[in-house]
């Protein structure tokens, strides 16, 4: 039998390696192209003049203002109330905690329309708390408050998930040491846990804010689409789309730019890990 030279072995391996490389590159390229193309279309099919005309559409400024105000308020609520909740969940184990964790993650996977129906059934005029709310003179649906509530409901899970795993990733002995050094539970939380979980919490807050900014279905069903009051940027895209395609496109570009900037900044800050913070 002829001896197999290393050259022959190399020749046999080469096509195998090539097939793998071509296969992965093909698959990766196809999906990447599919994902880039619509974004490219948004940018490439709009002239500068059309963009300027689009963003001066009368529904743009009120929608932008409303989106900014409501998402900042909803983010503040999510962070202020979500951080203690994430901390409590991360410090405990057991069936009840697993159940609570599942419940707080649920809105992230619910179809937004379902979230809208659920919010109406809870806080709507004929909802669970409707009678009581009416009694104290409050009617939530179709108000700016409803926009904020819808945003909190759908975006909180993104924050909670990130904050819970950030708290869980803290080395337990760092918390124990802080305790042995005489730190009260509050001091352990503020001086040790919070700074250590900081990057994860910030990433969660950014994702949560982006989700709130893009919120559509629950807002439409629970808060409606009233210009200046409940019409957010995404709802304005939907409305202008029916009358003025270019205005919808210009608005979409604004949203894409905001989302991209946010995600890219996040990748830069969280992609480096603790080593880079030296």
């Amino acid at each position: 039998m002829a001896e197999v030279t290393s050259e022959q072995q190399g020749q046999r391996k080469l096509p195998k390696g090539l097939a793998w490389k071509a296969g992965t590159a093909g698959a990766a390229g196809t999906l990447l192209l599919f994902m880039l193309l619509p974004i490219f279309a948004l940018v490439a099919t709009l002239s500068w003049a059309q963009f300027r005309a689009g963003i001066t559409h009368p529904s743009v400024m009120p929608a932008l203002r409303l989106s900014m105000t409501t998402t900042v308020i909803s983010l503040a609520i999510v962070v202020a109330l979500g951080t203690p909740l994430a901390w409590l969940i991360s410090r405990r184990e057991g069936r009840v905690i697993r159940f609570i964790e599942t419940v707080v993650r649920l809105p992230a996977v619910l179809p937004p329309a379902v979230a809208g129906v659920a919010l109406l059934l809870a806080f709507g005029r004929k909802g669970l708390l409707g009678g009581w709310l009416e009694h104290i003179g409050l009617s939530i649906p179709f108000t700016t408050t409803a926009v904020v509530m819808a945003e909190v409901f759908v975006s909180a899970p993104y924050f909670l998930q990130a904050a819970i795993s950030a708290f869980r990733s803290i080395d337990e002995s760092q918390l124990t040491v802080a305790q042995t050094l005489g730190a009260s539970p509050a001091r352990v939380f503020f001086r040790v846990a919070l700074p250590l979980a900081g990057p994860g919490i910030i990433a969660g807050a950014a994702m949560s804010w982006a989700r709130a900014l893009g919120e559509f279905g629950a807002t439409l069903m629970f808060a409606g689409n009233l210009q200046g009051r409940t019409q957010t940027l995404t709802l304005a895209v939907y409305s202008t789309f029916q009358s003025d395609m270019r205005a919808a496109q210009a608005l979409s570009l604004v949203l894409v730019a905001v989302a991209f900037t946010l995600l890219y900044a996040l990748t830069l800050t969280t992609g480096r890990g603790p080593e880079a913070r030296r």
Partner: protein
Amino acid sequence: MIAIDVKAEVGALKLRVQLSAYDGTTIVVGPNGAGKSTLLKSVLGVVKPSAGNVSLGKRALYCSEQRINVATEDRRLGYVPQCYALFPHMTVLDNVAFGVRGRSKQERHEHVMELLADLGIDHLAKRKTLRLSGGESQRVALARALAIKPHALLLDEPMAALDAGARRKVRRFLGVRLRAIGIPTIVVSHDIDDVEALGGRVAVLEAGRIVQVGSLEELRRKPATEFVREFVAAAPVEPPRAVNEIQAWV
């Protein structure tokens, strides 16, 4: 003196320990999973025993009968965990100052700097802890534990996170230091070299129970179990090092 008489159950481990740690060093040795760290945690109050007593001098830290369970933050025990658990978001100075209370900022700073100088690490004060070597990290962790003027000191596997070269140096440093501190000190280890270097009494923990307490010599002469026999056999019998040789390392 720390007097420990506790029962605790953590997972499959059943801890039933009676142990007194006097002023000076008591080294708790034992195989992996024997309950060494759990024992330390039950003294710290992180693991709540199901029954028993833990007292420090005349002060009860835990007493199931009298329903006493002093919170970890009020026990005043210096603790150095296995990987030192320094706070990476703080400088060395802030790490050590973390537990120092009740003085002006200036006084706190002076107290910490004094302590750092005493341990030969004052030049590291402004450094972030991620930039420290293993040996330096251990000194910072020790300084942080000592900064609260603890009534007792607990060290969990103090050499485990070090490479072999650093280990030799740190052992000698710790041996001299712990003797000088003079408060009850419990060191958990599974390494006979630590026992040799640190000196003091040795308590052997196996499957949650103390099976033998004594000096290394006593353990050598009359090992109570197979583990003790193998453990002491692993040590080369060396004459004790001259004190000035040890101090040259510090």
